């Protein structure tokens, strides 16, 4: 078991590793909603080519962070750099470099899957033949080609996640942000997404993933960062953190964010 106070000793990200190019750099990132501070002075660096699992309990500030980093929400304070470009100063250039699968999917419900991918591809100003080829391939890989005339509104939840991921990939992003991509997805669709993400990591794409499914994080990620109450409490290479903690990711995570609550004397009416 690792005590949160001990964790502070290895919060400095990748301190022992040879400096690698940085894909994402957050400096003093803060977001307030009235008096409530959702993200509090967050500093984080993500190495290029790494697969970061961004973890935290519900309401910790994960989605708020990812929304700010991808330009879906304005930060109250702080700076965001993606591949050495400032998001505030060069939003168009940054958007060309990133792909995003947000938690609340940004889909045009009344387009078909192919139409939506074409739309996104053209928004990224890709060549017409490139869009056609990639759309066909993405629909095939995501197994979405069976119903070409179906509108997105008719898609199941898993299909919507897959089309959103396909749209995030069509312009060949160098950094990919995924907010809970496995939530509500069946085992078959999850396998497709996992395989795809592994292949992308092998090809050098930096991936920033939030997920509540720790088995997936353990299997896919090279690094993790854990946030609680809007503050970063630990970050670093996954193997290193696990070795220091001497336990699996689930126990490590639960201990860090507040531990288990005893169930005795509760729900006394059941049974």
């Amino acid at each position, binding site marked *: 078991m690792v005590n949160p106070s001990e964790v502070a000793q290895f919060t400095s990200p990748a301190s022992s590793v040879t400096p690698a190019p940085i894909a994402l750099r957050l400096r003093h990132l803060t977001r307030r909603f009235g008096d409530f501070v959702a993200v509090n002075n967050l500093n984080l660096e993500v190495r290029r080519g790494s697969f970061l699992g961004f973890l935290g309990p519900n309401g910790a500030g994960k989605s708020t962070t990812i929304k700010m980093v*991808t*330009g*879906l*929400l*304005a930060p109250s304070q702080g700076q965001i750099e993606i591949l050495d470009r400032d998001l505030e100063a060069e*939003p*168009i*250039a940054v*958007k*060309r470099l*990133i792909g*995003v699968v*947000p938690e*609340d*999917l*940004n*889909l*045009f*419900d*009344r*387009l*078909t*899957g*192919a*139409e939506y991918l*074409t*739309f*996104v591809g*053209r*928004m*990224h*100003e890709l060549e*017409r033949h490139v*869009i*056609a*080829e990639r*759309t*066909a391939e993405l*629909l*095939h890989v995501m197994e979405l*080609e*069976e*119903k*070409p*005339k*179906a*509108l997105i*509104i*008719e*898609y199941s939840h898993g299909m919507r996640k897959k089309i959103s991921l396909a*749209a995030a990939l069509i312009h060949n992003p160098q950094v990919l942000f995924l907010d809970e991509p496995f939530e509500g997805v069946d085992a078959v669709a999850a396998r497709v997404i996992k395989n795809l993400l592994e292949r992308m990591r092998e090809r050098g794409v930096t991936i920033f993933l939030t997920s509540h499914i720790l088995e997936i994080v353990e299997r896919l990620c090279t690094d993790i960062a854990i946030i609680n109450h809007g503050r970063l409490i630990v970050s670093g290479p996954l193997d290193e953190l696990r070795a220091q903690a001497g336990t699996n990711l689930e126990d490590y995570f639960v201990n860090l964010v507040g531990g288990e609550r005893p169930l005795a004397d509760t729900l006394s009416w059941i049974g």
Partner: protein
Amino acid sequence: MSQLHTLFWLRYRIFRNSLTTRGEMARKILNTVLLLIPVLLSVGIGIGLFLLLLFVEQARTPIMNGGMTTVLATLLFLMLISQSTGASSHFDPSKFALFPIKFGKLYVLNLMSAVGEFSMLMVLPSMAGMLLGLGFAYGHIFGGVIVFLLALLWVTSLFICTGMLFAWLLSGRKRSREILFALLIGLMTVGGQLLPRFFITPQGRGLMRWLLPYRDIITTVIDWTPIGVWSFFFRHLVEGETATAYIRLVLVCGIWISLALAIGLRLFTRLATSPRASSTASRVPRGKRAAATNTFLSFHLPFVPGQIAVVIAKELRYFARNPATYLTIISSLIFPLLFFRTGRSGTNSNLWISGWIVYVFAMNLQYFAGLFAYDAAGFRLYLLVPIRWTRLLLGKNAAIWLLVTTQITLVLLSAELLDHNLTFEKVYIAGCSMLSAMAMYSVVGNYVSIYFPYRINFGVPARRRENWSGISLLVQFALLFGVMGLLLLPIGAAYWFRAPKMLYFLFAVLVVASWTVYFLFLETQAKLLAARRFDIAETLTRRTEKV
């Protein structure tokens, strides 16, 4: 806490929790005030009718013998048309499918709450004024009250029944069914307008003459309808046939009310378990790659940047898939052809042409003032892709320009087919009016869309406007009348100075001026859109709870 009490508490809490900010509260108050104006007008009409029947003896007989039936039938027709917007606040049965509550109980609650619906409030005062007025005037106060109560029950059950029918029709999210539904409503609306005009044509008069021998049969049939029986009741009450009057009233109303209630309850129960999404699109066998990539959205326009072209294509796709578009097109085509025919000549003709151009624009106002209304969550994609806001605005505006141009061209062509007198002057005035209105509507519409964004859910049972501001309505009214005034200026000036050529010159100046203003404001509007993008995304995606 009883279930009944809980349901009312739920309604209250949801309303209370929706007032999260002062702005939200101010918006709700303003919307209520704006709605109160027509409601007060309706109450005034009801009181006027009551007093008229009470004090003017000559008014009683014509109202009792057919006048009341006609007026109430028209009001009920309008009420049903307004229901097609889905703007009612029924308890949605599907939200309660998991709770141990009888649907019958929810259904009764819906009946009770229907009395407070806006479209009901437009009907009930007139109905009360006439029925209670006749009862009081003839000294049958009890009879007046009874017939009013039965009428109230009938109208309420009809309201709920048709509301459920519309919701059920749209519950499958099937596009073909939605478009069919929109066309039906459009034809009903237009039919309601055409019918009275038909009866003053020679063919209409011929039909009336043909029907004359069957008048007694028609009257008998009408007397067995819920609206007709109210006239029947008063006629027989006045003649002293009290028993006949009451028996027929209770019998006819009982049958119709039971029928509406039973159908409504059946639909209500079905709605609770009906699928919210269905996929009827054809499947392609596994392994066989579909040629789905050559989509409409691949189309290119010469000299137009690809991003603008694809925004236009996407918007056109949305128009084509939106039942509201079909309603708009039907309305904007039929009314100008009926009322603003080009057959007139001189200044009159020019006035009519500018008039129907303004009318077509008024029909399309919702698109200009709600640029992002149908995007919903899709709007956030614009935050993620590398598009400049100027291009987005231009693309969205251009799509509406195409839609309006198509409608106006169709009106002009149809008018030529009917009247065969489309002159250069008429086409010139129509073209200039259209171009000027396009630019002015776009300038104001962009500001309204950016400052007062709202969402319209299309293709779902609740297709009402959400997060909508009453201020936006005021601005739209100002726009409507402002543009009308500007288009009348050249015509007025040419008429005043008796210089017909001035008309051509002034219209050309108006076109150039309005487009200059449009392009001058575009960059500012794009910056404003960039600054307000998060607020707009929030408004378009914020969930408004409906139970």
